[in-house]
């Protein structure tokens, strides 16, 4: 057991990688699904063990190939990494049972094993970004996750998915290029790629070369912001989320953007923030401005969408705005709010997109006009959907309220009453677009399109209900979400200069 314990940081990447390779070998849908399911259910134990270890006894460091850092690649797990690893692996584990029927329905037989192969590669990449302590290694994993994501999106149910995947490919490549240029500039300044080492060497370099370091900060921030779909760099997201296979959308919306946000937090607080005074630079102000724009403009666009999945995609852009808003506050309550909303939004959005997948599975449409009265035909699905919707609005008693509470506290702490007002105000727009769907789903007579619909089988229903229940549970018990987020935020802010 001890032998495995010491290698957990690498095993969490290796298990999905080998899973992907075996799924590629299997070349048949059922074995590939079985591999994906086993991997998805094993990973949370690795992540959980590391989270427990980190909270009990501090950061874990693992040296690849036994090369000592900063020369070799170091995997470094602290509370922030462990928190993100736990989130990504849990989302994979909970949603995976949903995939078999949904993928079986939406994707033709020959491509199903490749779908699972690509999912496992994407999981490898996302977990790798979160676990590595090496800036360039993070780029490699970013590419692994991105390339597999393009394939996942391109496997979507109609031909527009190809265009959406291509659009994301262009935007994602630009983002990755910006990131790697930023890392290159940092390497130029410090001669190191190890994140801890860069942070230590950046301070002395700041005195005589501040311009290059500001350029590096700008490149990394813009590059990662493209990946996390910060407004106005979000244009790839609505198409990608509406045309990808339903299950892929649920998984990606809950994990891919969240891992990119982790990377932004890591660079801002553990690398640049340690070496230079971030408050003296306009980066936080820019992030706050764009976040507020995302919350309002993306929410307003969501109100006018005619397709359910597209509406939720724009809502994702708005919700990412809340997360980056908290990061921009650079204080304890704000950062806690941002980090906790990473988890809360992931759970809600996964539930919402799974519900969309279930609706498509039964009704074969996600156009709002066709979905009149769907609530009466699919009561359990739409109840879970409604619960998650209340989470989006931030109703007290759901996890969304906890996030907004901390965000409002963060704004009050800075004395920005206008921002507090804006946070509350944006919830009202969420109420409009969510209310519109709920009115159509529950209050109208069932239309012809949904006459045959009924709740999906248990394997699809259980993940959905579980995620919706989590939305309520984390609205009351915040020890695992806000508790760990607050510990993490305290650690990050304590390291700031």
């Amino acid at each position, binding site marked *: 057991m001890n*032998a495995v314990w010491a*290698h957990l940081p*690498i095993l969490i990447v*290796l298990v999905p*990688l*080998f899973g*992907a*390779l*075996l799924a*590629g*070998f299997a*070349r048949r849908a059922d074995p590939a699904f079985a591999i994906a399911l086993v991997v998805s259910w094993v990973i949370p134990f690795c992540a959980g063990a590391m989270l427990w270890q980190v909270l009990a006894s501090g950061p874990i460091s*693992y*040296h*690849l*190939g*036994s090369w000592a850092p900063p020369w070799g690649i170091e995997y470094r797990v602290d509370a922030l990494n462990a928190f993100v690893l736990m989130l990504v692996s849990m989302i994979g584990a909970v949603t995976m049972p949903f995939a078999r029927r949904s993928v079986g329905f939406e994707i033709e037989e020959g491509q199903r094993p490749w779908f699972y*192969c690509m999912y496992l590669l994407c999981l490898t990449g996302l977990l790798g970004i979160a676990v590595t302590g090496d800036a360039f290694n993070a780029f490699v994993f970013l590419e692994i996750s991105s390339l597999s994501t393009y394939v996942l999106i391109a496997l979507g149910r109609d031909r527009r998915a190809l265009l959406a995947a291509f659009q994301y490919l262009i935007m994602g490549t630009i983002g990755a290029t910006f990131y790697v240029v930023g890392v290159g500039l940092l390497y130029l300044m410090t001669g190191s790629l190890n994140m801890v080492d860069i942070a230590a060497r950046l301070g002395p370099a700041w005195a005589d070369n501040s311009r290059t370091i500001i350029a590096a900060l700008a490149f990394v921030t813009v590059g990662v912001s493209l990946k996390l779909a910060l407004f106005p760099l979000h244009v790839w997201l609505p198409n990608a989320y509406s045309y990808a296979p339903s299950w892929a959308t649920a998984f990606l919306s809950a994990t891919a953007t969240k891992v990119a946000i982790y990377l932004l937090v890591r660079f801002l607080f553990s690398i640049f923030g340690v070496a230079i005074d971030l408050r003296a630079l306009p980066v936080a102000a820019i992030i706050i401005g764009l976040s507020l724009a995302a919350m309002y403009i993306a929410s307003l666009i969501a109100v006018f969408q005619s397709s359910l999945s597209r509406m939720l995609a724009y809502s994702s852009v708005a919700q990412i705005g809340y997360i980056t808003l908290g990061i921009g506050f650079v204080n304890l309550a704000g950062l806690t709010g941002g980090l906790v909303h990473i988890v809360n939004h992931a759970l809600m959005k996964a539930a919402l997109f799974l519900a969309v997948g279930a609706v498509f599975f039964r009704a074969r449409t996600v156009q709002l006009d066709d979905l009149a009265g769907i609530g009466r035909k699919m009561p359990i699905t739409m109840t879970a959907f409604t619960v998650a919707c209340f989470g989006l609005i931030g109703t007290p008693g759901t996890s969304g309220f906890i996030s907004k509470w901390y965000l409002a506290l963060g704004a009050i702490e800075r004395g920005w009453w206008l921002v507090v007002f804006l946070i509350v105000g944006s919830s009202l727009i969420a109420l409009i677009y969510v209310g519109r769907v709920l009115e159509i789903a529950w209050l109208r007579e069932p239309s012809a399109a949904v006459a045959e619909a009924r709740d999906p089988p248990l394997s699809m229903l259980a993940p959905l209900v579980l995620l919706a229940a989590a939305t309520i549970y984390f609205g009351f018990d915040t020890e695992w979400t806000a508790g760990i987020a607050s510990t993490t935020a305290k650690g990050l802010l304590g390291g700031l200069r």
Partner: protein
Amino acid sequence: MSLDLILRVGTKLVLPFILLFALYVQFHGDYGPGGGFQAGVIVASVIILLSITFGLDAAHRIAPQPLVERMIPLGVLIYAGTGVAGLILGKNYLDYSVLSHDAVHGHELGVFLVEAGVLVTVAGTMTALFYAFAERGR
């Protein structure tokens, strides 16, 4: 068909030497320019030349689609498996020093196996790309 006699005979003559050159590039990668990626591309070029001259069916007989598609994960499996060998022998992942009686030989063996993995994956990927484009018109 008789007009391309020189092409056919020439291709047949040159194919084994291309393959041999690929192996040279592969193994010489330890000492000079070369390595798994370049060698993999050269191996794939054998299949491409074969199918340009003799048709896609001839290429499929030598490198069937299922084999090519399995080569892609197989190479990565060799690479990652070499890393795991270090893990099983009690060191960290990708630590090749335990693969042989001393650390230097261990590293040589480790890199040799890794490059072999790269060869398999690159050859498989290049051939699969070629097949994907070549079969579009059929």
